[in-house]
């Protein structure tokens, strides 16, 4: 039990000299002093108050903490904040524009692709990274790109539908 609790404890200050970190998050340039042992996930949640990105397993297994870093979907729970020096980062908060949800978010809602919603930010970010690199993926490619995201509620089928509807709508919108 003790061990379990310490694993999920919030970030503990290391007492080591802080490192100045400068990066771009959702289009905004951010400079902060961080502890070398802080994870990127805790940096986003605790320092920048971007709490859309979730922590579930904390060990790379579940994908709840997925963000886009330099164009790639990665699990922020097992990356140090200091590793993100100079990086371009998009979190789930970066998807909506001018207060309007993105097509991807709208389709997750329309298809009931979430129930408790804890996995959703991770699924959205894995999907966004996929479609940015490959706007027309096959079913296999979608499933592969989402292989690191676990959902205990939906059974995945609505998620797949939401992704496919997003592809359709984004294609229409871009005029192809």
């Amino acid at each position, binding site marked *: 039990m003790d061990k379990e609790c*310490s*694993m999920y404890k919030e*970030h*503990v200050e*290391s*007492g*080591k*000299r802080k*490192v100045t970190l400068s990066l771009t998050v959702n289009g905004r340039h951010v400079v902060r002093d961080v502890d*070398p*042992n*802080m*994870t990127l996930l805790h940096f986003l949640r605790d320092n920048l108050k971007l709490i859309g990105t979730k922590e579930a397993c*904390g*060990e*790379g*297994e579940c*994908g709840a903490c*997925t963000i886009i870093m330099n164009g*790639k*979907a*990665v*699990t922020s*729970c*097992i*990356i*140090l904040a*200091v*590793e993100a*020096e100079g990086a371009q980062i998009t979190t789930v908060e970066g998807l909506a524009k001018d207060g309007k949800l993105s097509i991807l978010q709208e389709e997750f809602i329309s298809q009931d692709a979430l129930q408790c919603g804890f996995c959703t930010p991770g699924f959205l970010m*894995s999907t966004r990274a996929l479609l940015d690199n490959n706007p027309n993926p096959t079913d296999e490619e979608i499933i*592969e*790109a*989402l*292989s*690191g*995201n*676990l959902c205990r509620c939906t059974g995945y089928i609505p998620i797949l539908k939401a992704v496919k509807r997003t592809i359709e709508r984004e294609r229409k919108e871009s005029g192809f």
Partner: protein
Amino acid sequence: MISRFTYFKPHNLNEAVQYLEKEENAFVLAGGTDLMILLRRNLINAEHILDIKALPEMDLFNFVDGAGLTIGASVVVNRVVDSEVVSAKYPALHQAAASLASFQLRNRATVVGNICNASPGADLPPALLVYDAVVNITGPQGTRQVPLNEFFTGVKRTVLQRGELVVSVQLPEPGAGDKSVYLRQARLRGHDLATVGIACRLKPDGKVAIGIGAVAPTPKRLFALEDKINERGISKETIEWAAQEIREHIHPITDVRSSAQYRLQIASVLLKRGLLSLIGKEE
């Protein structure tokens, strides 16, 4: 995370080596998909973390006719999965890379990290072993090359000495008509290490090479079994025989993933399936 460490990301290899030699409890960080778990669970006491991702030597990823393939220590697994030359010339490596962890993890996990972590059940070593991979190491005494086959010394142990870093892993060029395959059995795809992972290679001269993981303290080549198969000559009959004979060449243990008995059985099945596919036959 309770570990309290300083973080250093040098741009120069000499600086990196000096740092590792000088500092107590210094750990190398590549993709961090193994190291961060150890840190999180407080299984290691790290005082210094050396990030190798800004070292230019580590970013090398190229194929040169005659010389073969070089994979630098910061090359991530998805780069190998996406590489056309790897799919064409080293199919077992492509397949092993594509089966490792999940898509997000492969965007961070490095090939060299997979070797250096020295897990008995890691996916890439069997495939690298059948290609006679060589590990390029640099350290306080200069550089040295160690065949991957001699690199692992035990569970989570390697020949690396204090101050030493792996710069890259190198695979000789296979001849025309070379074939290979990687097969793994796991409880869950993307979320579990292999119960058994096996790479089979059929060279243009008809000789086979077999690399296997999760049946011994280290990933290994089954040289004695290869010799026996090669003496008999590859055929459907030889393969049937080898699928039984492999039980004499591996000594798996029972652990959380599988019983020893099941590992013996699945190694036999995977070897048969792998070799048959290389000679174009079905089971």
